């Protein structure tokens, strides 16, 4: 009974332990500031009905139409970009992503994705963490790819099986695993104490030994290349 409980807990993605992440704040602030803007607009329309460009009204407009909207742009952008890195965001494209999300939660799945998700290696942001490349270039490319996915999903122009546009780069694995104790303990990964050239250059893909990346029905995606 207890073991079942542990298995369930490990596959649900974990409960929220405490409110107060940057995303929580960004969403709350965006809602609060947007509501404040709406209040300013309504008050201006009611109180300064025929005097929209007079002294006091302009101060209210300065707040509601000048300062607060600029704040909401910052908090809103942050919230959208941050929320777009979460597994539940990817999972909302349920027609295509459902098998992948089910795989993440499947305690018997042999896939790398499930192992990463169930071990909470990147809590709540596993899809993004593995599929976005290094640095700002990687983030930017991931956002563009995400927009393309949304377009394809919305216009129903996607096709099964889903395939990655290009092979999954080893650097996407190495950005976390390079230098990790368990990774460095395996001599097959190394060459002169460093990551081997084979792995660096991508001549040998990580998933060629550690497959499957996702354990999904063939209709949904080809193992090792799906995502």
């Amino acid at each position, binding site marked *: 009974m207890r073991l079942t409980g542990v298995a369930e807990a490990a596959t649900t993605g974990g409960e929220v332990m405490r409110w107060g992440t940057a995303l929580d704040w960004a969403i709350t602030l965006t809602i609060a500031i947007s509501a404040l803007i709406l209040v300013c607009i309504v008050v201006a329309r009611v109180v300064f009905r025929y005097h929209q460009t007079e002294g006091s009204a*302009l101060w209210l407009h300065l707040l509601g139409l000048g300062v607060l909207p600029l704040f909401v742009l910052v908090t809103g952008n942050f919230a959208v970009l941050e929320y777009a890195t979460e597994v539940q965001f990817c999972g909302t494209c349920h027609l295509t992503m459902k098998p992948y999300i089910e795989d993440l939660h499947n305690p018997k799945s042999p896939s790398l994705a499930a192992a990463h998700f169930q071990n909470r290696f990147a809590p709540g942001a596993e899809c993004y963490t593995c599929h976005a490349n290094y640095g700002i270039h990687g983030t930017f490319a991931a956002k563009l790819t995400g927009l393309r996915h949304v377009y394809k999903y919305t216009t129903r122009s996607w096709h099964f099986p889903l395939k990655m546009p290009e092979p999954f780069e080893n650097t996407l694995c190495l950005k976390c695993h390079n230098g990790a104790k368990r990774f460095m303990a395996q001599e097959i990964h190394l060459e002169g104490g460093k990551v081997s050239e084979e792995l660096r250059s991508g001549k040998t893909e990580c998933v060629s030994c550690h497959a499957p990346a996702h354990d999904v029905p063939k209709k949904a995606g080809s193992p090792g290349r799906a995502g």
Partner: protein
Amino acid sequence: MLGLSFNVLPGLRHGDWRSKFILLSQVLIGAASLLGVIAMITKQPLLLLGWAAVGQGLILLGVACFVIVALFSQRTLVSENFSAGEVIFNEGDPGRDVYVVKSGTVQVLMKGRDGAQELISTLGPGDHFGEMALLRNAPRNATIRTVTPVEVYRMSPNNFAALYTSLPALREHFQKVMESRLRELDTRRG
């Protein structure tokens, strides 16, 4: 450089272009804010991306509308300085700005039958000039020359028109002044 402050704004009514810009700004930013609230509460990806793509555009457009109004509103009264003996404008010039003397003295000069300039009157602090050309839609009918160093407030035709149409007491005052000046002009021309 940008004039005085918001407090010198005339009481513009809802027909003025600035009021319409403010309304446009309110509609754009209000719609984007509403979309933002709904998107953030529901966390629907399409709504969130819609807000990020369209909502932000609406907000920027709305802020731009407000900034335009704020910039032009601040130019309602522009302070200008002239040295003694300078001409502010000449008789026959095109021009529709209205001036209010803040400090100093100016002369109102008009060409006589012989072509020489005759002194019509002298204006000091609180007096105004330039409204005749605007209200009659005609060129300047007199030359204004400073006697001492002068500071004037220049008001654009739109702002003057807004004041003129929305403040009955002011309109009455200007009508009286204009009638008096036209009578004086007719007397002079015989």
